[in-house]
């Protein structure tokens, strides 16, 4: 669904992706495939000699890519961020560079990528047996989000859902119980966040707290969300990070990871993710860049 939309959007205008630290087999394969599929045009930033060597080993032609040489990871990040800041690229992709360094560069006010929003990570999964895409957030940026940051997490995830074609996404706020319980303060906050999201018009269908089990199970009780959420929001980073990795490894999901809230989407996946997930993440970023024009 996302791949098709990325190809469709690419026909009218191809987004250019700046790959920070492109000297990585899987990253190059993902970018080359996305380019071949007409989703993006790639601008590779990193050690040019190493990138060209790897492209040769992968039977890919360096002539098909724009390559900017960078002496080290720090320089690659700076140059890739600058390409996005200047508007030459509309997607930033993490290659073989440390995530914290890349995030620091994106968050720096001088980089020009901040647009006054909180940055959050959204993992969009194609879960076998689940009839639609399911987003998990935030498993990558905000460690222990406070009340206002949770509203931003929901807002950003809703925006991603709408960009991939879900007009009225249903949002489940996770908790250890299915009702607000003072014994567990995070359940009380989840209930408050859910109410505020609806009152502020962030989304129409937001419910919580509920356990992930309840969120993914058709409930006997009246609920617009339980059994069919488009988005699940956790109380802290570890919950989503660990849960999504479990689903990826043991359930065989296709995973798309993106950081949203900046001037350009940042395609971010784990080093150990296979090229298919890296390409899918790039496709999601391409859709976001294309729809945001």
């Amino acid at each position: 669904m996302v791949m098709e939309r990325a190809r469709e959007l690419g026909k009218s205008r191809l987004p250019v992706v700046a790959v920070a630290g492109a000297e990585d087999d899987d990253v190059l394969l993902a970018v080359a495939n996305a380019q071949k599929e007409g989703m993006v045009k790639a601008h590779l930033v990193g050690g040019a000699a190493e990138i060209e060597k790897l492209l040769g080993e992968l039977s890919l032609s360096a002539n098909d890519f724009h390559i900017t040489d960078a002496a080290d990871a720090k320089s690659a990040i700076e140059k890739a961020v600058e390409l996005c800041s200047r508007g030459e690229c509309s997607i930033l992709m993490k290659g073989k560079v440390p995530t914290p360094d890349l995030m620091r560069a994106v968050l720096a006010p001088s980089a020009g990528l901040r647009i006054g929003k909180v940055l959050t990570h959204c993992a969009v999964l194609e879960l076998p047996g689940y009839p639609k895409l399911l987003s998990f957030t935030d498993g990558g940026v905000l460690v222990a989000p406070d009340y206002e940051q949770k509203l931003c997490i929901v807002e950003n995830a809703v925006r991603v859902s709408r960009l991939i074609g879900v007009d009225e996404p249903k949002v489940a706020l996770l908790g250890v119980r299915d009702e607000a319980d003072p014994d567990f303060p995070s359940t009380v906050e989840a209930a408050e966040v859910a109410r505020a999201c609806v009152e502020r018009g962030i989304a129409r269908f937001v419910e919580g707290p509920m356990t992930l089990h309840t969120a993914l199970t058709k409930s006997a009780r009246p609920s617009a969300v339980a059994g069919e959420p488009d988005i699940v929001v956790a109380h802290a980073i570890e919950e989503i990070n660990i849960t999504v990795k479990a689903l990826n490894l043991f359930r065989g999901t296709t995973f798309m990871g993106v950081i949203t809230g900046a001037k350009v989407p940042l395609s971010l996946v784990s080093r150990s993710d296979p090229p298919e997930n890296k390409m899918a993440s790039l496709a999601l970023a391409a859709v976001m860049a294309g729809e945001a024009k």
Partner: protein
Amino acid sequence: MTFRELAARAAAKKPARMDVYGATDSDAAALRRWSEKGWRIVQCDGKGETGLAVLAEAARRKETDVLCVIGTEPVKTIRALERALPHETGPLSWLHGFEIPAYPKLLWTGSTPSVRYESVPDALRAVQAMIRALNAFGMDEPRVALLSCVEAISPGVPSTIWQAVLGHMGTRGQFGKAKVDGPMGFDLAVSPKSAAEKKFKSEIGAQADLLVPPDLNTFLSLASALFLTGPQEAADVVIGGPCPIFLTPPGLGNHAELSLAAASLLI
């Protein structure tokens, strides 16, 4: 270890007294079966928190050997039992065991709902109790992974601090034969491929027997995710009280049998 092996070990144990809460007609056949095997079943008539308090009292007085709680909300039940048990009993820890098609052995995950792991002594006690349970199941040298979202010890991610302390104790052999390491991501705890790609070296060797998530929220979501991984067997047992407790859905099917097997090895 597999559930089959665990059940075989449990079969060698002598049945004892089991106090049961929440049984309905749908559980009658299984209770009869257990009774025929030699279990002395005592049904608790009370309802809600009062009924659970009656159950806890029987455990406190050492009148029973196993508690079976059917069809209740686990988190609420554990808190109610904790309230009913004497303070010196300590916190209850909840262990989920899974036999997952994509993993070569039993995988357990554990949490201690009322404990904030940021307190290193509390985290240590909780993990030690879980290790003792795994030892009783027949795992002589369990591999315990303390899960977080990063491998680096980072003040920005508070869970990595207590995990680093326990992990360091693990490398010094302070957990006896158990191997304990953390913090580490889920993939590094269970996937040799991920560990090799990320050049992550650990005594756990990406073959964890027990995963300890940083909090109850993560434990519950991880358990739900593991339930989604396909046809599998699972068991639940609560440790830390005067006797083992198992929580099970109504109907007392395979889950109840395996949970009882795990609980009976803890008597």
